[in-house]
């Protein structure tokens, strides 16, 4: 595959690179089924998790991924650290880099932070974006694509895209980096994306994106999409005039039991977590046979192993690309 120096945005991946990453993740998932689920591949390499924003799930997923590849892991969480005393991204990154690290996994509240870090002269390490503001979360996009591909193609997934797959994303697209991560990747893989949300939660100018949009969840369900992805409604949106109150939101845009019962038999349900049960998704839908929520979590580790492996074996030194290719 092509040498990938950093992973900053899902839209940076072309079809071949994206499929290569998904295929590498297949190999990594196989490792998890072994008696000792660990590879020596990144022995002696150090990965720093820089989390300027809380995200236990993503941090644990990256930690597990790095450890399964035998990398050393340094974790930095902003809470109670010098960041709360005003230390900047630059200073923190340089401090960590001075300890000698090979890759930085960055979670930051500011959109573009990973790109700014990667394109600066502040550090020399590979940068993996683990979520930047409301911009992107490329490993989430990849794990969602992986989960969809697996659900559709099963053991024959290798080499496949998502051609013709119809994915409907419902909810707070405006503030969602998960939605953008999927939007940046799924069309590249051949999927068609439909967004459903009240007008207040659809991004301004979304009609210029390669998607269709509407505000009618019932019509979207009747349209029998292959995937229905419900987005989390953040607590802080409840009182900012995006919608009147939770009950009205749930009534129009929640996957309640009645709507769930109407889903086409082949429609899969996804949610990036953590879920607000009873708001955007009912317990029945979340815990059903066709919910892929736990697959998403499990696949997250395999995808992050594939990403760390790829950025640390390719691109660092031009000559190492071929040798490092899987």
């Amino acid at each position, binding site marked *: 595959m092509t040498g990938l120096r950093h992973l900053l945005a899902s839209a940076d991946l072309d079809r071949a690179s994206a499929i290569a990453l998904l295929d590498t993740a297949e190999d990594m998932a196989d490792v998890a089924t072994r008696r000792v689920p660990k590879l020596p591949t990144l022995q002696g390499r150090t990965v720093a998790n820089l989390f300027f924003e809380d995200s236990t799930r993503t941090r644990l997923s990256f930690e597990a991924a790095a450890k399964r590849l035998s990398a050393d892991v340094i974790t930095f969480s902003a809470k109670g650290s010098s960041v709360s005393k005003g230390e*900047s*991204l*630059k200073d923190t990154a340089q401090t960590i880099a001075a300890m000698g690290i090979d890759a930085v996994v960055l979670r*930051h*509240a*500011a*959109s*573009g*932070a990973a*790109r*700014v870090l990667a*394109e600066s002269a502040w550090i020399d390490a590979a940068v993996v974006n683990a979520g*930047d*503001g*409301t*911009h*992107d979360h490329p490993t989430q996009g990849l794990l969602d694509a992986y989960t969809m591909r697996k659900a559709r193609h099963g053991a024959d997934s290798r080499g496949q895209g998502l051609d013709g797959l119809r994915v409907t994303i419902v909810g707070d697209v*405006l503030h969602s*980096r998960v939605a*953008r991560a999927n939007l940046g990747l799924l069309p590249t893989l051949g999927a068609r994306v439909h967004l459903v949300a009240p007008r207040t939660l659809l*991004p*301004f*100018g*979304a009609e*210029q*994106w390669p998607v269709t949009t509407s505000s009618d969840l019932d019509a979207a369900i009747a349209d029998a999409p292959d995937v229905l992805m419900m987005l989390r409604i953040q607590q802080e949106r409840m009182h900012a005039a995006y919608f009147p109150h939770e009950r009205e939101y749930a009534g129009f845009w929640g996957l309640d039991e009645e709507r769930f019962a109407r889903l086409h038999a082949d429609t899969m349900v996804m949610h990036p977590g953590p879920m607000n049960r009873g708001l955007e998704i009912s317990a029945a839908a979340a815990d059903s046979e066709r919910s892929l929520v736990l697959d998403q979590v499990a696949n997250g580790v395999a995808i992050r192993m594939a990403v760390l492996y790829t950025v640390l074996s390719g691109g660092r030194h031009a000559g190492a690309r071929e040798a490092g290719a899987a």
Partner: protein
Amino acid sequence: MSGTAYLIRGATLPDGETTDLLVREGRIAERGAGLSDRGAIPVDAAGLRALPGLVDLHTHLREPGFEQSETVLTGSRAAAAGGFTTVHAMANTFPVQDTAGVVEQVAALGAAAGYATVRPVGAVTVGLAGERLAEIGAMARSRAAVRVFSDDGKCVHDALLMRRALEYVATFDGVVAQHAQEPRLTEGAQMNEGALASTLGLAGWPAVAEEAIIARDVLLAEHVGARLHVCHLSTAGSVDVIRWAKARGIAVTAEATPHHLLLTEQLIAGDAALDPDAVGHRGYDSRLKVNPPLRRDEDVRALRAAVADGTIDIVATDHAPHPVESKECAWAEASFGMVGLESALSVVQAALVDPGHLDWGDVARVLSRTPAEIGRVPGYDAPFAPGSPAHLTLVDPTARRRFGRAQLRGRGVNSPYLGRELPGRIVATFHAGVATVLDGELQTLPTPTDHEVA
């Protein structure tokens, strides 16, 4: 230094006439072909354009209070390097320029520095807080003779307060310069609202937040019969509102900044990859973060057309220096603003003159005569006429250069043009007969007080 006489030979005036100019005792002493030098220092201006000294209606000099960003001295040096002889120092200092004492101090610092006439802008409201009027009359009557009042950086958003400000400022022949930004519509705003902001995940600054305030203000100005100046127009819709207001006879003037006439939001997505020499911008390049934000290409085209047809009266820099650390961070954490004094004329040439929207006579109008009229600055009504103050600048419009740190003569280096090739070069600037720039070099003026350290 004003005792030194200069004979400028063969300069081409804005109207195309080529002439010699004798500068003596701070004034244009003689004008005509073949003047004899009579002991004056000769300045060869063959092939150069002489422009009246440039007047900036919108400058942030940061002193008092933010001297790590800029001082009156460093900012007026930047002004001279850019061909300016008068700058209007915005009120968002600390303490705020909302009393006669502070504006007199700023004016005195400008006079002591000597590089340009520093005209303090008075705050409209106490502490820029938008609650009650600042002592506008006292500032107008002070030795600083303030005529431009602005809460720039903040919008006077309360409609009643804006009405009263327009009326009260008119009492003193002043003008309110409004920073048009509806605050609720722009909470947390980071860049122009549109598909690009949505893709980049940056909170949008919608055009309507500017246009709605301008529409309200021109109607208020009409209602109370006062004049209004609108700072940094950035959208095509704002141009439409101003055009409508002028057709209706409302006493409104409008400005555009050089950066809104040249740069678009698209740069924020990054184009450095297209240009391996790093002349372009990296993604989320915080040097491009400015308020109001860079807009779409169609907005830039509308602004250029509006300057060309006079709907927009002047170009003003909104020179906004910041320390390096305010820009060396993630986009959302970076300060708004870019420096602009040193690059303004080059950008105007690139955006308006070279494409044929303006000739040099128009440049003299939008960068000198009209801003001086709006600010009631004396001495700019008859440039190059014998007896007039010798505020002028000599420009080589045929020069092209890669704009670099060496061109930045203020304290701020937050210029979006670093590395970009720009036309034109300031060869000399004369402020009241004093050469502040000569042979393209900023001159060192004797400092009567060592206030740079203060």
